[in-house]
């Protein structure tokens, strides 16, 4: 029998998206999000994160199979809350009017919760959204999203434009969603944020998932090796990535035998990677042969 932890909030198999004009944004992506976890989709700009999320929500046509709580998105849409990359809301409205509109349009919307979040973010309730800064627009959109009683929350760059204090508040709020039994899919290119709140990460680059796993496993299982630049790696080396910088040859691996081999190379330094180092080494070393 499946445990709660193993139930899937989101399953993506073979997701492929080519935009008109031939841009191949996502290339056969597979990954899943377990119920009750914060899953961060990490990657540089143009990696395919937003395209993946747009596919999940049915905003674009795609090839592949996507299931949300084992259903098509249209069946469970009421149970999904979303904050897009572009936090545009109706500029002619005030936050007060926005709450009223959401209350009418969205079935499971709690106006009082929205008011509470907006107060917490110090938003002027009667001012037109047109006059809001980027950070205020983000705070408004987050308030409207968090006031929805949903099981899956999808955030695309949710801290964009926020000051450091509000950003930490938002990260805490997102973390608390999971404590309340919700699931979060979160995209960001700010690694320090992800490290604070994510249970699991998937790293995207050039439309592909390079790595998917638990953040705790990175420190436990992966090592980065800094070696002399003139060292020749064996052709069949089992590593996640390898790259040369100005002074060193850098290798990322989780293979025990490879670790043993690399440790024996003279002047080699072994480092337990944090997420930042893991991410940088993985992405920068991808094209090394």
């Amino acid at each position: 029998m499946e445990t709660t932890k193993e139930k899937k909030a989101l399953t993506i198999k073979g997701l492929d998206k080519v935009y008109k004009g031939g841009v191949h944004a996502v290339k056969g992506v597979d990954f899943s999000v377990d119920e009750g976890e914060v899953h961060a989709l990490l990657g540089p700009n143009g990696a395919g994160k937003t395209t993946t999320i747009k596919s999940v929500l049915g905003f674009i046509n795609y090839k592949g199979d996507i299931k949300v709580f084992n259903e098509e998105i249209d069946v469970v849409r009421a149970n999904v809350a979303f904050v897009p990359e572009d936090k545009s809301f109706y500029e002619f409205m005030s936050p007060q009017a926005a709450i009223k509109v959401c209350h009418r349009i969205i079935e499971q919307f709690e106006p009082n919760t929205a008011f509470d979040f907006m107060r917490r973010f110090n938003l002027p309730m009667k001012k037109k959204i047109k006059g809001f800064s980027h950070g205020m627009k983000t705070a408004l959109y987050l308030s409207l999203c968090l006031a929805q009683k949903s099981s899956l929350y999808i955030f695309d760059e949710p801290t964009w434009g926020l000051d450091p204090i509000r950003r930490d508040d938002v990260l805490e709020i997102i973390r608390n969603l999971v404590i309340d039994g919700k699931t979060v899919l979160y995209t960001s290119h700010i690694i320090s944020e992800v490290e604070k709140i994510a249970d699991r990460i998937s790293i995207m680059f050039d439309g592909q998932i390079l790595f998917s796993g638990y953040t705790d496993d990175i420190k436990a299982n992966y090592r980065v090796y800094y070696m002399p630049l003139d060292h020749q790696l064996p052709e069949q080396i089992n590593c996640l990535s390898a790259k040369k910088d100005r002074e060193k040859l850098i290798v990322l691996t989780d293979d025990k035998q490879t670790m043993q081999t690399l440790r024996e190379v003279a002047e080699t330094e072994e480092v337990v990677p944090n997420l930042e180092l893991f991410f940088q080494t993985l992405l920068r070393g991808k094209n090394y042969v």
Partner: protein
Amino acid sequence: MFNKTMMEMKFRIIIFALFFVLMLVVLIVTRPVIDEVMSQMSIDNEQLKDLPDFFKDMLAETAQISKMLEDDQFFLLSQWYSKNFGQFLPLFALIMSFTIFAREADKGTIYFLLAKKNRPALFWSKTITGYFVVIVMMLIFSLTAPIAMMLSGYTVAFTPQLFAIIVQQLIGVTFFYSLFLLFSILFNDQIKPVLAGIIVIVGLPFLSLFESLKWLNPYPYILGTQVINRGTFDGLYTLGLIVITVAITWIGLEVFKKKEF
């Protein structure tokens, strides 16, 4: 969703309502002036005898029209439904429709709606709200004109001929609305649907220049030309426009269901 769409249309509804009221007031206020001007245009036979034949025909036609315009009912049909109000209906349909989907795509607010609503539900709620506004406003100002003229002391009545024109205008304005709404779905900015709509509004009368394409120009139908001239309701054209309106609405739905945002 109905309330939200109404909020977005509120400003345009007020502007058009004021515009139509102003036009109606001008029409009623200038009614005696037009009467006087037209009566001065009648020329006696002594004056006509030295003029060329084509000019005599033209003056005779003008004299006939001026005679007809003395009748309040004819004045109402020809000057309100066939001219002032009728001519603005396609523009009214364009202004009411072009933002309905295009603005959401242009401003990025479409993601808020698409995240929570299935596309067919979203399409119908927005489309029907727009249809409702256009039809209600059209009916209000169609019916207000004869009432206002009656209250001003003129002899007009709700005749079958008047209702026939109203029905034709209702069908005509919904046809234009459905077409312009399709433009609003097709384009992701607010400029292109307006430009496409203006091209249609300006371009359609040119089709009348070609005998074989005359039927494609719906203006004579919307302005009730046949109803006024012959007293007959154009049933076939009505049926044709209803079928086309339904088809365009269905195409709009299918396009919206597959459109990428």
